[in-house]
């Protein structure tokens, strides 16, 4: 009989660089892979400990007794990442340990089943960095809708296109008055890294939302992922902005004349005609007007942040 350690701890033999190493099971072109590489650059010396709920982000570690992750990982139940992280961080603080506790979660674990846990941890202003890689779908279970799935998108449980609108998780998180909330784009490296640096410097609850290309779920080509996110930012579908303390806003990248067509025609999840480019453009316009009004009324003071 093989000797199996008492507990299901999978080992890795090198330390933190990169956080997610070669041999992981992410699909080619997965946005998570880019996000975790950039995360590694910023946090390589910060001793990150990750709480990851059920999602592609834990499956990618591979099976016991090895792990593609090079840092300590708590694979939590689906709804529990922010609460497990609370326990981990509390004990680190009471033992004055220098490390960073991070939740790395999909949209299902963030917008849906984990929302109450996330909200409570944010309300308590736990000293945690929460990063949601939002692929707008339940990837791990084969591509069902979530409340992050945008209007019009075809999934295995919205076969003729989703009729409801995507939940505005950034507004929800801002409403918790957390020190820092920001959106991340894998097509805007400098902005992405800068925001991670701010998150690293900030104390308390930090929420980062990354739109994460998912070739498998989006029915797009693996090499198109970064371009797709660039289009999403430029056409205004996914605004890059930051919110300090829930009441000081800053837009980081303005929208331009890029058409939503560029974005939707390269993903077969959009191509059943369940939503028209004009309808989407109207929704985007309305959202931008609202965001602009908020930013004008509650700007982040550039000298202060």
């Amino acid at each position: 009989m093989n000797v199996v350690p008492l507990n299901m701890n999978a080992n890795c033999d090198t330390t933190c660089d990169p956080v997610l190493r070669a041999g992981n099971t992410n699909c080619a072109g997965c946005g998570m892979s880019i996000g975790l590489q950039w995360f590694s650059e910023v946090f390589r010396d910060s001793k990150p400990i990750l709480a990851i709920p059920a999602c592609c982000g834990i499956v990618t570690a591979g099976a016991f007794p090895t792990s593609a992750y090079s840092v300590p990982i708590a694979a939590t139940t689906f709804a529990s990442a922010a609460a497990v992280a609370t326990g981990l961080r509390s004990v680190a603080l009471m033992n004055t340990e220098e490390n960073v506790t991070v939740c790395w979660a999909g949209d299902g674990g963030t917008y849906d089943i984990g929302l109450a846990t996330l909200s409570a941890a944010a309300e308590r202003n736990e000293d945690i960095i929460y990063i949601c890689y939002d692929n707008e779908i339940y990837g791990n279970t084969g591509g069902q809708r979530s409340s992050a799935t945008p209007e019009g998108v075809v999934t295995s449980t919205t076969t003729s296109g989703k009729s409801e609108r995507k939940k505005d998780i950034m507004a929800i998180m801002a409403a918790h008055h957390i020190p820092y909330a920001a959106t991340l784009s894998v097509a805007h490296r400098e902005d992405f890294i800068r925001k991670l640096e701010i998150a690293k410097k900030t104390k308390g609850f930090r929420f980062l939302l990354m739109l994460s290309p998912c070739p498998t779920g989006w029915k797009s080509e693996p090499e198109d992922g970064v371009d797709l996110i660039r289009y999403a930012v430029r056409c205004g579908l996914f605004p890059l902005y930051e919110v300090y303390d829930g009441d000081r806003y800053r837009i980081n990248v303005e929208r331009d004349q890029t058409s939503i067509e560029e974005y939707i025609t390269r993903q077969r999840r959009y191509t059943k005609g369940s939503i028209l480019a004009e309808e989407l453009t109207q929704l985007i316009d309305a959202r931008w007007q609202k965001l602009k009004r908020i930013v004008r009324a509650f700007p982040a003071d550039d000298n202060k942040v």
Partner: protein
Amino acid sequence: MARKLVSGNQAAGHTLAVAGEANREARGCICGAYPITPQTEIIEFLRAYEFTKGRVVPVESEHSAMAVCMGGSLAGARSVTASSSNGLAYMTENVFAAGYYRLPIVMIAVNRTLGPPWNIWVDQGDSLMLRDAPWLQFYTESHQDLVDTILLAFRVAEDPRILLPAMVAMDGFVTSHTQMGVDLPEQELVDRFLPHCIVPHRLRSDHPTTIGGLTWPKETEHHRIEIQRAMERVPEVLAEAISEFEEIFGRRPHGLLSAEHTEDADVILVASNSMARTLRGVVESRREAGEKIGMIKAKTFRPFPREAFESAVGKTAKVGVLDRNHSPGSGGIFWQEIVTSLRNQPDTMVQDYLVGLGGGDVTPEILHEIVDDLISRSKSVEPVWKEVASR
């Protein structure tokens, strides 16, 4: 020793607090706290307690209460919580996770009826619903039993041979909200009794591991076998802990079970929690009247001490089981376990009595009636509903 008149909840709160405090020179104590009647006073007590190194996190649900405990334990702290009834039901997913992670968390379960319809009174269906979770379970009859068992639970759960979470149950209201004189354990003695909590597989940056990721059937089989082996080591570890407890505290708590007047008994009644106390009075009085009656107080439910039951029952002809719980379509849950334990004793008749469900008051008179019924039977039948509340 400080002898105090306190409620069961206060006794439990105090004991969890001093146990948590006893880990102050190690990695501290953590608690995820969420209220539910009749357990609430315990988490209130813990919130008010000033730990040298500890944190009681006021979470938004029992599911997260256990998740905070898991995070704390994964970081190496002593972890505690308490719940009841629907709180335990809501927590269930993480109850299992904590055990599969092999985290020595200690939880007080104050037994209360599951709902809806809402009923706050005692019924053991809540903690027994979790019987298939990888947790130790102890049932306690009095405040002193409760306090002592909580301390034993930490010792056994955190023992490197065990490393499983432990649940200590008491009856809602009957125990939680009544006052009794208790020797409340003092910090100094608890410091001696409880070694620092060491979670050998805790997450650490100098030795990164992924805990709780994917496993194949082969590893999962090993994992489950390891858990069963750990369960099988509990009697030995518990016995050692009791001996040391006696040396330090000067009293000897019950272990797996307490067999009383069983050697020459013709009939034996089995009960748990506060019902065992009522039963003791009934057995003593009938003994005085010359009847050969014995009793077993069932204390350790996980692991279920089948051998201890087998030898305590011996050749006794009739065993009656008092179950304040019900598995619909089957019967009492202690009964199922006891019948399994006595499977090699075909001459023993085992009769189940479902009594006091939903908090009905189980008086000595009712237990006398059950004893009479048991004596009059020559063959066991399906579980008998002994209605007490509608009388």
